[in-house]
């Protein structure tokens, strides 16, 4: 067999491998949209679940997820941004830098259910927050920390060094330079990381299983010490725990969750591409 022919066959096989990933993804998204779309009514989004979650809507789960995710960002963004600033602007000791990066990699690799265990032992039991929005948000915050740190650090490091030098030469202090020059130019990148973190937090189930998620709770949570329903857990419940739930409701819930997560990713991608186009350097 000559080498040209081998090349053709090899490239065809590689193409097939790519199709084997892309096609199922497309198929999954299409199925969910096609079967979930009929459930998409205003009532579905704004009504509480009725008849043992076999009818009605998903409003408490939707609101619960928004609360939990908002709380997670509230905790994760300041710490994540601080860590990113430290790694990109302050760190000098190579060893400590390496150690922090290794910790971030490991934090990103800890299985989500282990976060759930930790959140339960630490926030729910040790700090006596109980199963609550506070516990769930804190648990998710630690989980999305690596995403925010990594994206923000990249954004900060991509600001050219000359910007900083100009600022110093004008007599600005280190913090003034970071605050007014570096951060300003890194905001799109930081925003991208934050939104990706939101998307990740919104879709996770295992970390909230024992820290906040309520099986069924028709009223909305009033304080951060209340339990709340959450969209991913609700999908798990109606597809495995409750028998005879109408297919439409299951697909509808899956679709809402998918839209929520994809929307976040889309916004992140749009910001990123806009930013790259407008880059001044």
């Amino acid at each position, binding site marked *: 067999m000559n*080498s040209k022919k*081998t090349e053709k066959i*090899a*490239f065809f096989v590689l*193409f097939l*491998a*790519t199709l084997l*990933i892309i096609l*199922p*993804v*497309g198929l999954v998204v299409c*199925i*969910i949209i096609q079967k979930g779309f009929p459930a998409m009514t205003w009532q579905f989004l704004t009504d509480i679940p009725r008849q043992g979650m076999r009818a009605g809507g998903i409003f408490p789960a939707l609101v619960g997820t928004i609360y939990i995710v908002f709380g997670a960002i509230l905790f994760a963004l300041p*710490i994540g*941004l*601080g*860590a990113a*600033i*430290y790694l990109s602007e302050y760190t000098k000791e190579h060893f400590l830098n390496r*150690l*922090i990066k*290794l*910790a*971030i990699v*490991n*934090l*990103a*690799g*800890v*299985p989500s*259910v*282990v976060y*759930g*265990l*930790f959140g*339960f*032992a630490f926030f729910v*039991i*040790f700090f006596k927050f109980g199963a609550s929005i506070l516990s769930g948000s804190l648990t998710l915050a630690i989980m999305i*920390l*690596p995403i925010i*740190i990594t994206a923000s650090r990249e954004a900060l490091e991509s600001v050219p060094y000359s910007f900083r030098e100009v600022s110093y030469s004008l007599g600005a*202090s280190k*913090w003034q330079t970071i605050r007014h020059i570096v951060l300003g130019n890194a905001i799109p990148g930081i925003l991208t990381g934050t939104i990706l973190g939101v998307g990740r937090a*919104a*879709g*996770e*189930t*295992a970390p909230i*299983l024992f820290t906040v998620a309520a099986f069924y709770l028709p009223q909305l949570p009033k304080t951060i010490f209340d339990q709340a329903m959450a969209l*991913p857990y609700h*999908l*798990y419940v109606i*597809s*495995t725990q409750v028998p005879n739930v109408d297919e439409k409701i299951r697909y509808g819930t899956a679709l809402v*969750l*998918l839209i929520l*997560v*994809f929307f976040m*990713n889309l916004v992140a991608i749009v910001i990123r591409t806009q930013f790259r186009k407008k880059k001044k350097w």
Partner: protein
Amino acid sequence: MQKFKEFIIEKLILISGLASIFFVILIFLFLLKEGLALFKFVNPGQFLFGKNWYPISEPAQLEILPLILGSLLVTLGAAVISIPIGVGCAIFIAEVSPPSIKEILKAGIELLAAIPSVVLGFIGMVTLVPWVKNIFQLPTGLTAVSGSIMLAFMAMPTIVSIAEDALYSVPKSYKEGALALGSTKWQAIYRVLLPAASSGIFAAVMLGLGRVIGETMAVMMITGNAAVIPKSILQPVRTLTATIAAEMGEAVVGSEHYFALFAIGIVLFVVSFMINVTADLFLHRKKI
């Protein structure tokens, strides 16, 4: 005043910087605190290598070999599927595909990475599980093989994106050198690029499989959750992660069962720690 303000801010930034290290240690300490209590009741060898997981029988039997084997079997299956397809896709995106579809393909991969695992689990339940049942003529489609297929898809985005990065970071001159010597594009990829990127690709595979071992929801929904030693991939199995997720809600705080679930958490933490450290070493290997 200005000086003092900056001092405070710089200390706050230092604290944030150290937060990741602090959290990793904190997670491990709390797992140890709750998990090690188990070994007052069960010896570690028996816990790891005993065959019976009956947490609510009297007395409870807490031995996790069936769960370890369940996790290994599902992971092995996912590896067999995801490694060739994922690496193949990475090569295609990095070297073969025309630039115009390259971005679309990458977006498709990112899309897959973004789908929440509970949604994939749900889709697996309603599509994959009945197919597996019909194709293999089984009493149930909730089997290890269904889990492996689903998990392969969850590992692929990691494998593809990191392997693609590794291929991309091989200096252009390597390939150009090979092409100048008269090799075809494929020969250059196969003989030059792949060996040069091998440590990055290895790290990609490790991280992909790390994701598989730690995956919880999809696995819990489609592997059938039978805590017995699996004899074939066409049987229901139960993984370490699914056991924690399924039983934590019922375990009484402070009971042997509760401690055992944290001990499983220690096992998962240690395994993922080793995987991540190894992958990191391979990723940061000194470039030639």
